[in-house]
């Protein structure tokens, strides 16, 4: 067993699985960084992901175009999260509750629509998923090559989104405004920033990214849709945002930690190793709690986190 674990093939397959499991979390987390920085805790990512995963699969299945499926998943993600935006910014609902409600609704709608369209079958309908694109030269490097440069295009896009979201957050006026409405909505309002608008955009960005994450699950990670396709990745993304202290670069680290512990668990199970991997799976969540403690202490959390902004109220 042990020489099996310490072999190069095991390592390569483990790291490849890590990347594949980390990508959807990374997608969703990058979007949630904007949402949460604007002061909104959207626990409904899970629901957005499952609805988008269903949309991506259905569109890809009938149109034959994976990219059409991917794009429609993003559109569905934006539309679905607009409910969250409306609930939290217009109706001033308790965000936690709104998120839980939309998760239940999302799980219901995705499974319902899928069953109505495809019916009950013994074998679930399948599609050809996004193919692996080997980058020339780079993919020939041992271990690193097959792990980093032999992936599908959505994975590469996710990695490219890291610098993009960093730039958007740290180097643009929009990023500054997102941080302001999360930190001090009243002062932002006094400065002439449309608080509700910025917050809505932040939620929709999160929705678009969660949509991409959902599409990744059903058309890149898997090639089919099942009711429990998105098992906790949405919540993991929320955790990763806290873990990373709202920094896109660290969101990658966080996603990889979650991806790795999942991948290791799956690989160990595949070779039948009797190592209690549940304790390992627990670890990222415990680390997240510690990250939360340190962010809360240094007041790195947005001051208006989960607080709706009401203009008239003093």
């Amino acid at each position, binding site marked *: 067993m042990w020489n099996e674990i310490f072999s190069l093939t095991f390592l390569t397959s483990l790291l490849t699985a890590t990347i594949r499991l980390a990508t959807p979390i990374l997608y969703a987390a990058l979007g949630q960084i904007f949402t949460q920085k604007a002061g909104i*805790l959207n*626990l409904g990512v899970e629901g957005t992901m499952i609805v988008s995963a269903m949309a991506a699969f259905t569109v890809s299945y009938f149109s034959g175009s994976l990219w059409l499926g991917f794009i429609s998943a993003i559109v569905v993600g934006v539309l679905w999260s607009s*409910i969250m935006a409306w*609930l939290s910014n*217009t*109706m*001033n*609902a*308790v965000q*936690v*509750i*709104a998120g*839980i*409600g*939309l*998760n*239940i*609704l*999302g*799980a*219901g*709608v*995705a*499974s*319902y629509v899928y*069953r*109505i369209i495809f019916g009950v079958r013994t074998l679930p309908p399948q599609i050809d998923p996004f193919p692996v694109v080997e980058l020339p030269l780079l993919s020939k490097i041992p271990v690193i090559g097959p792990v980093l440069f032999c992936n599908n295009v959505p994975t590469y896009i996710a990695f490219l989104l890291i610098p993009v979201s960093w730039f958007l957050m740290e180097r643009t006026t929009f990023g500054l405004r997102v941080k302001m409405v999360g930190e001090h909505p009243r002062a932002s309002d006094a400065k002439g920033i449309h608080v509700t608008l910025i917050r809505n955009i932040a939620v929709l960005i999160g929705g678009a990214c969660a949509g991409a994450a959902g599409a990744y699950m059903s058309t890149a990670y898997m090639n089919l849709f099942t*009711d429990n396709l998105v098992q*906790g990745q949405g*919540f993991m993304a*929320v*955790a990763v945002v*806290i873990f990373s202290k709202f920094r896109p670069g660290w969101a990658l680290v966080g996603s990889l930690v979650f991806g790795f512990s999942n991948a290791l668990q799956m690989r160990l199970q595949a070779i039948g190793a009797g190592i*209690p991997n*549940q*304790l390992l*799976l*627990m670890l990222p*969540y*415990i680390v*997240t*709690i510690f990250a*939360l*403690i340190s962010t*809360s*202490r240094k007041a790195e*959390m947005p001051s208006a*986190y*989960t607080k709706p902004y009401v203009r008239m109220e003093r």
Partner: protein
Amino acid sequence: MMKRRLRSSISTTWQTAVIVVAALLLGALFIAFAGESPLECYGVMLEGALGSMSRISEIMIKMVPLMIMALGVSIAFRAKLWNIGAEGQMIVGAITSAVVGLYIPLLPWLHMIIAPIFGMIGGALWAMIAGWLRVRFNANEVITTMMLNYVALYLLAYMVYGPMQEPGGYNYPQSSSMAESIQLTPLGAGLRVNTSVFVAIGVLILIILFWRSRFGFTVDLLGHGTKITNYAGLNANRTIIWTMMLSGALSGLVGWIEVYGVHFRLLEGIGAGFGDLAVVITLLGKMSPIGILFASFFISALLVGGATMQRMTAIPYSIVDIIQGLVIVLLITQPMIQQKLQARKARGIYVE
């Protein structure tokens, strides 16, 4: 005073009924979209939920744990502590109470007292972690309770695959079965509903009394903010921790009921999805004990009836999730809509 309270509770009941009907009507749209008759499907659902004694027994089996759990959640929610970790607290309660039944040799009647207490302690301690983190580090309890849910989930998996796994049990993720003498007894031959119904009634009465007690008042006060609580000369921090513990204790008690009354052993996936359901029920019941009693009946009937509907018609079980999700969305938009309507009415008077 009494009259005003009665009137306000009637109007709340009325509003909640409107929301439930609206959610069912929107659900009917989904059924119609699938090309089925909503009336017929809802008929099958009602029949499946209340059609026979065994159906009602099935409702009770779901209603007892869900009501107790929702009562626990409501304690935290009224203090504006968004404890979404009821499921984790229930799981830990299930583990601690199962430990008593499996490893501690006691007289059966003593077991019936010790096991639920252990369950409650387990749940309370698990919830206390989140409460303590909130008080000590100002850590958002939503995130901590959510993370602790997963930790509990994996702890359970570790236990039933590892130290607590049934010896010689074909490697199933479950513990040995509880001795029959310490199981909760069914209320009738062939029925699954058991003596935990009386536990539920007891808890309900205790919680009604709780809200009239001094501590209940403090919890409600905490819901208005920690500053107000401190100004009133009460210790907000201590209240936060005790509120979380009480909330978790009830979920832990549910862990005991599931282990000793439903599954008769500890197993993976015990009480899966109960956390979300408890939140739905708490909100639908407007966080009042009697409201939660009715809400837990409605949701349990929906679950049991939905399963029948899936078997008898072409409508998938997920319609149950859709209706629940709609109920939550409608419930949280209700205060704002009401405010807008009132503002419009007031403006109308002004213009005249």
